[in-house]
């Protein structure tokens, strides 16, 4: 009976993918910066993942679902907040040395309007451009390795490394108070 197979597939999805719901939600929450939007995006991503579950082969389910969640986040942001998904400029510069990333990029000035907040790392992370924010979240908060981060974000490991470096440098400059002026 078709419905038995269907039910088996669904319970397999629930036992393989749903354990990573918290990680999925956390990534979406950091990328959308909003509870309700994160919930919408995660639900959409889970349904999408369920539809493509047949393409999932044994392996790292967490990376698999986070990749889908991330992609869903970006297309949601493109639809709803295009200013949030400006691509990183001068990505190349990173390979040659240290690039200066202003902590406030895109439309994130509003988040930084309160100067006293600038010492708070969670606020600083929220203000990072999305491609830098996600590597910090995946590395420091989800404690994933470079290879997994590369897989989730769809960029080479070298780019993961340079983005991490860039993100940390930006966070340190602002956090240690070296250039609060520049950050505004």
């Amino acid at each position, binding site marked *: 009976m*078709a*419905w038995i197979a*269907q*039910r088996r597939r*669904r319970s397999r*999805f*629930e036992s393989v993918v*749903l354990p990573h*719901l*918290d990680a*999925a*939600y*956390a990534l979406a*929450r*950091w990328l959308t910066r909003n*509870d309700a939007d*994160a*919930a*919408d995006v*995660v*639900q959409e991503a*889970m*349904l999408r993942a*369920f*539809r493509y579950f047949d393409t999932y082969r044994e392996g790292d389910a967490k990376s698999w679902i986070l990749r889908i969640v991330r992609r869903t986040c970006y297309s949601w942001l493109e639809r709803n907040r295009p200013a949030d998904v400006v691509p990183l400029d001068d990505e190349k510069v990173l390979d040659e040395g240290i690039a200066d990333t202003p902590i406030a990029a895109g439309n994130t000035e509003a988040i930084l309007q309160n100067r006293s907040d600038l010492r*708070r*790392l*969670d606020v600083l*992370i929220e203000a990072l451009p999305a491609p830098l924010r996600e590597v*910090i979240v995946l*590395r*420091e*908060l989800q404690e994933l*390795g*470079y290879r997994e981060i590369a897989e989730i974000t769809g960029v080479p490991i070298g780019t993961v*490394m340079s983005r*991490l*470096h860039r993100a*940390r440098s930006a*966070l*340190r400059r602002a*956090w*240690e108070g070296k250039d609060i002026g520049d950050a505004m």
Partner: protein
Amino acid sequence: MQCDEVRPRLDAYIDGELAETERAEVHDHLEDCPECGPETVALQRLREGIRRSAPTYRAPEALRSQIRLALRREDAATTRTARPAPGWLAYAASLLLAVAVGSGGTLLITGERQEDVVANELIDSHLRSLLGSHLTDVASSDQHTVKPWFAGRSDVSPPAVDLAAEGFPLVGGRLDLIVGKPVPALVYRRREHVINVFVLPASRGDLGATVTRRGYTLRHWNEGDLGFWAVTDAAPSELADFERVFREATKG
């Protein structure tokens, strides 16, 4: 290793991503170097700061159950479309007739009672309203906003009364397409639950006062030439209360 070789590797070093030989070389350098050592400490301090101050986000319980529900619905939807045509067509036809003809006909085409068919379709619609972001088309607790909104959009004019004083605030109205027919729905809240009241032409048959289908509670009553179908995930007793206050308020 010299400083200019060590610096680009510091991130990977503290992340434990260096190969063993490289790691050892960087480690040796850090022991002696008065600049790279503190730099590493600063990076580690940043990491600790991030872990300490960043909130840990967890998926709300409601999201978890919503997703399970959505998965089940997804399966149900594919089963239905995968089913061979005759049954489904008869089903759609009977429903369309039920909506269009209302009290008129005896429509036992599929052997299912017409009310059963309608009930199932309305529960689906209720679920759709909860899952998506499309709970209301017109969001207002003011009957003078909600009622006129339906004019020209649907054949029936639903009595939109706010029942906030009785514990059922009016949230707004929505137009749902049910087999291609626009059907008005009034949206009420009961604490964290939603009550959708679909308004169709009155039907002669009776579903019985309260039924529970697929975990949802449904009540049907006729008032004048209108038939009301209330669907909710709240308790059956609450829906009975709702019907009582709704009927009292709309009696005129």
